[in-house]
């Protein structure tokens, strides 16, 4: 069983407030692994640790077979990790096609001058990037929007563009940050299919951080549940669903709102 990603005893706190406490999880290569939890559970902190924005106070991250105390944000693409963002991080100054093309940038070898002067190697790489982008755009049904500015497009379309851009970097591991947020029912189904396709068609391991528990239970091979920065359940969806600790975390004793808000704010 090959691990695409693993966290071992990762802890993170902000000014005394613990966002993550001794969190461990293992993501099997080729699986769809979801991370869920109520508000303030530490999901965004976890995501930011995985993106190299935060450096854990303790613990290790294992990615692509190597151990890290903290992930280097600038080298993630080359390590095979791509992510989408909850609030969409598209480049408004570039068209849809250009956004997707630039997903390939980590693989491009041409130097600065070569690129500026449009020398052969740079042109070849640009053509390759365009081909890949066009193919992905076709697969994600983005053809009508290729030359459009991203800002004016409907939210659901923008999400697909971001997804395409993430796929363009040929990732081994795809991190999705609340992919279902803000989507209509039909769009959610599309996203659902896309995530499954990522696994089956593009052979990518998918890690989802999500609020929509139903979708998660439906689509995942494995679910980790966080609450107050602690991992309270970890296993296949059927088992996690029945776990009393999970049920309590979501439906039971209400957490003191101040604490949850503090953690969320600290994690921002």
């Amino acid at each position, binding site marked *: 069983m090959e691990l695409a990603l693993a966290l071992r005893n990762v802890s993170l706190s902000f000014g005394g407030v613990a966002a993550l406490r001794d969190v461990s999880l293992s993501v099997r290569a080729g699986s769809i692994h979801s991370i869920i939890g109520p508000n303030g559970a530490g999901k965004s902190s976890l995501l930011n640790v995985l*993106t*190299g*924005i935060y450096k854990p106070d303790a613990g290790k991250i294992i990615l692509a077979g190597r151990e890290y105390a903290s992930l280097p*944000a*600038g*080298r*993630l*693409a*080359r390590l095979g990790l*791509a*992510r989408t*963002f909850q609030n969409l*991080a*598209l*480049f*408004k*100054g*570039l*068209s849809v096609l*250009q956004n997707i093309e*630039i*997903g390939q*940038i*980590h*693989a*491009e070898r*041409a130097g*600065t001058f070569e*690129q*500026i*002067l*449009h020398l052969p190697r*740079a042109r070849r*790489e*640009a053509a390759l990037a365009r081909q890949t982008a066009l193919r992905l755009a076709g697969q994600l049904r983005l053809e009508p929007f290729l*030359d*459009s*500015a991203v800002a*004016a497009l409907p939210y659901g379309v923008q999400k697909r563009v971001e997804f395409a*851009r993430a796929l363009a*970097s040929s990732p081994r591991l795809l991190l999705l940050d609340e992919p279902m947020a803000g989507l209509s029912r039909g769009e959610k189904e599309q996203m659902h299919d896309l995530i499954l396709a990522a696994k089956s068609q593009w052979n990518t391991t998918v890690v989802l951080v999500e609020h929509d528990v139903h979708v998660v239970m439906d689509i995942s091979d494995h679910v980790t549940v966080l609450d107050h920065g602690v991992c309270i359940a970890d296993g296949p969806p059927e088992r996690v669903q029945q776990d009393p600790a999970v049920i309590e975390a979501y439906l039971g004793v209400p957490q003191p709102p101040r604490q949850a808000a503090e953690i969320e704010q600290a994690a921002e």
Partner: protein
Amino acid sequence: MKFIRSEPAAFGLFLLLALAMALIPSDYLFDAVLTPFLAVSLAALGLNILAGYAGQVSLGSAAFMAIGAFSTYDLLYYIPGLPLLIAFAGAGLITAAVALVFGLPGLRLKGFYLAISTLAAQFFVQWVFTNFPWFSGGDSSGVVNAPPIAIGGILIGSPLRRYLLSLLIVAVLSGFALLLTRSRVGQSFLAIRDNELAARVLGVNVLKTKLIACAVSGFYIGIAGALWAYLYVRLIEPAGYDLNFSFEILFVVIIGGLASVRGAFLGAAFMVVLPLALSRAGAAIFGDTFDSGLVDISEQIILGVLIILFLRLEPQGLSALISRLGLKKKQSHPLPSGVSHEFN
């Protein structure tokens, strides 16, 4: 909504028009309108690369122009026989290097902080050139006449020749700028501007890209300064490169349009033409009481209002307005009718 801009075609058209201008027999046109227009366009282009594309704002453009001007002077003064174009290029490189030195602290941090380091550059550089006569070849008067210049034996002494030389240099550099902005590097600039974190995660080398923007910007602004000093005012003087000038170049970029090569030209055209248009309009409406002082004041007010309006309503400036009107041609500066007859 269509996104593609047909800039190469517009560029070609602009060049033709600019060359056609050379046929007009008016020294005033060259010396007072076209040559400064070209120098300011180049400076705005340089600033735009940094501010508009890479999203980093510099408030010290004038100081960097001063560096370009003084570097040219010093290279030509202390290295006798140095070809003019080499001196210009050298001045550009020196300015790029200084830009990197001042820009580095700001680039490592979020956007606004570059403003502070460039302010430091603005005041420091002006002070250095004022207080140390070495830069003026030992002259401590604060104003030095630009010496006569020649290329390969041809004296660049007439308004027409000064205009053509400016045009040559600006055309080549604008062409390069077009290549740059349409390359992967230029796209990286925009990516960093729009979402630095996402760009970094995708693998864009953020620091290196920002430094490239900084250096290229410095190079362009330095040469713009050299053109300004040698081909327009024909003076080497620190006082002419003050904070106000820096702000004006920033205004050119805002009005013309951020992240747009033609925006630099549109904005520069506007800035050069505005005082001329105002003094005409003022004289026409108010007669003799509308003196140059009033022109300056009304220009200030109008600029202020326009800046706020553009920032609020059309941050992409004139460039975007023109796109929206469906006019794809690069506009050459609209000349107020009758200017060709005027000699002051």
